[in-house]
């Protein structure tokens, strides 16, 4: 199977008539995703590409289509509102692609969405794809192939790179999830690892992290404590220089945490295979799944 989305996912697109929204809606439909509706305020009653009904509000769209997932392509200043509108309308899975959402907006969106019982993916993420079944977001479908490996990543194009190298090596994927690189986002590494552990078709997991924060370290501990399936990881930013940091608050709250070296060490100590280069993920997977 897969995690979060599959053949039965009924998706609406918020911002379906915008430049990015319309382009990627076509791509998602072409891939086989069930796009059951779209939302653009003021364009309710129209149809996208003569097929997909457009609504003024998410609430109307959900009532008419029984959508259970949404993907958001609205400009950054409206993204917080779009996420809250979707959660309030009862959509269970909210994926926000928009880049540039103010982080203070996310401090309000996150508790709101959680209280409504919805799962948020993103913002500033490429979305996710369950190869051969459904894609939500912008991950190019042709670099993926169905198979037994789950993938979770903080990055966009680096995810494509690793998936591409896996597919070239004939290692397919159950679901590839891009959680996004913003400081505050919804679904995190641990949520995905937990879902992959429970998914009967996933045999191994790839985790791709970056410098900054402590999410990867916590995820590594989760792997040791809660997972039986093998996990391999890569961290980008091994050569990144320390920034010209202003203020002390960052250092006070996290100490020296967040370097690539520290994250790779956490991987090693907790039994997560460490790839030095993206291509090494392939060999590590082959060994782990033998």
């Amino acid at each position: 199977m897969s995690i979060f989305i599959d053949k039965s996912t009924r998706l609406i697109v918020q911002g379906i008539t915008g430049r990015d929204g319309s382009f990627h809606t076509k791509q998602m439909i072409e891939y086989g995703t069930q796009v059951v509706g779209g939302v653009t305020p003021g364009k309710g009653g129209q149809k996208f590409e003569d097929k997909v009904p457009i609504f003024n509000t998410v609430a109307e769209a959900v009532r008419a289509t029984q959508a259970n997932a949404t993907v958001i392509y609205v400009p950054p200043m409206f993204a917080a509102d779009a996420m809250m509108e979707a959660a309030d309308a009862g959509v269970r899975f909210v994926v926000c692609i928009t880049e540039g959402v103010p982080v203070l907006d996310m401090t309000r969106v996150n508790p709101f969405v959680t209280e409504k019982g919805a799962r948020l993916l993103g913002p500033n993420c490429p979305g996710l794809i369950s190869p051969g079944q459904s894609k939500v977001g912008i991950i190019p479908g042709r670099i993926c192939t169905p198979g037994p490996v789950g993938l979770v990543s903080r990055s966009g194009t680096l995810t494509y790179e690793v998936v591409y190298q896996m597919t070239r090596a004939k290692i397919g994927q159950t679901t590839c999830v891009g959680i996004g690189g913003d400081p505050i986002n919804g679904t995190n590494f641990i949520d995905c690892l937990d879902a992959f552990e429970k998914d009967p078709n996933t045999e191994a997991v790839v985790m791709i992290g970056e410098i900054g924060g402590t999410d990867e370290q916590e995820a590594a501990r989760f792997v040791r404590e809660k997972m039986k399936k093998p996990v391999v990881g890569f961290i980008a930013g091994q050569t990144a220089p320390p920034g010209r940091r202003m203020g002390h608050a960052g250092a006070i709250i996290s100490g020296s945490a967040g370097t690539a070296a520290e994250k790779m060490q956490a991987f090693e100590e907790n039994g997560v295979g460490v790839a030095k280069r993206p291509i090494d993920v392939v060999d590590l997977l082959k060994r782990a799944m033998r």
Partner: protein
Amino acid sequence: MNIHEYQAKEIFRKYGIPIPPGEVATTPEEAEAIARKFGTTVVIKAQVHAGGRGKAGGVKLAKTPEDAKSIAGQILRLTIKGLPVKKVLVTPAADIASEAYVGIIVDRASKRPVFMASPAGGIDIEEVAAKTPDKILRRPVDPRYGLQLYEAMQLAFFLYSDMKQVRAAAKILQQLYKAFFENGGSLAEINPLVTTPTGDVMALDAKMVIDDNELDRRPDIAALRDESAEDPSEVEARKANLTFIKLDGNVGCVVNGAGLAMATMDLVKYYGGEPANFLDIGGSSNPEKVVAALRIITSDPNVKAILFNIFGGITRTDDVANGIVTAIKQNPLKVPLVIRLTGTNEEIAVKILKENGLSAMTDMDEAVKKAVALATGKAA
């Protein structure tokens, strides 16, 4: 976006936080005139977007206007963490009875703004946090309600026992939170928050960092940007919508996406090279962005080879190819170029490059190896 201390102080003053007066000088003579006006011992502080100013010699006392002139002259000749000092803040020296720290930051782990307070403020606060964490009180704030009075009082009681000072500090904390939240901050800090021998509580320093994503809806804050205080190549990159950080190596890198850009730099190092920069051309890249990227990279004399690593998703690789061709026609390259591209419209991109005497590779590792070999003068 970083703003200067004097700008942060102006914002904090608007929120009623007590701060001693101060004026900005760009020459030693101006500093002298300001010191004369204050008629007392002054502190001269470098206004530069880097931490550790005090330890770098960028904060000094001047007892007379003549002293102020010569000390301002010294500080205005300093370069702190690669950034030249162009402005100093001149402010009357205060008598200090105690130094505390208060700061607020958006915390990834709790997904909230978190307040931090410590009675052991001053320049060694990071050491205090590392060695004696019990001297720091942390308090997450629910952004839907803001910092309530009782929360501010809890923090203030951690700093002071005198009731007058506790109340004054609580008010400062609530106003600091407002200044942070209403101006789209990602950090706001007062270090030190001092008490004077007469019992007043006031902010002797102010730091604020604004979330870049807030600037579109806050033109008044965006206008505080001081481009003269930033690295010129980073200014040009921002204007072209590129993310660029200059480094010391000799392999120039042009990549789409921050994660892939970092992974490319790592690979350059893995194969024995040194990256000259981090450069992310972002998602929907038009040819002009690529032209700007090449102009910025080639202006660095250390660059001995240029590597493009493009994985087309939203980015169309034919756009990148067109950008490369246009840039080279405008300004022929003096260093070798290695292009790796794959993904959206790859066939068209390869054709465009071929027609212009260029070639592209599809494998990331091979491309990086080749670029490193060319930069170091060894055969690939």
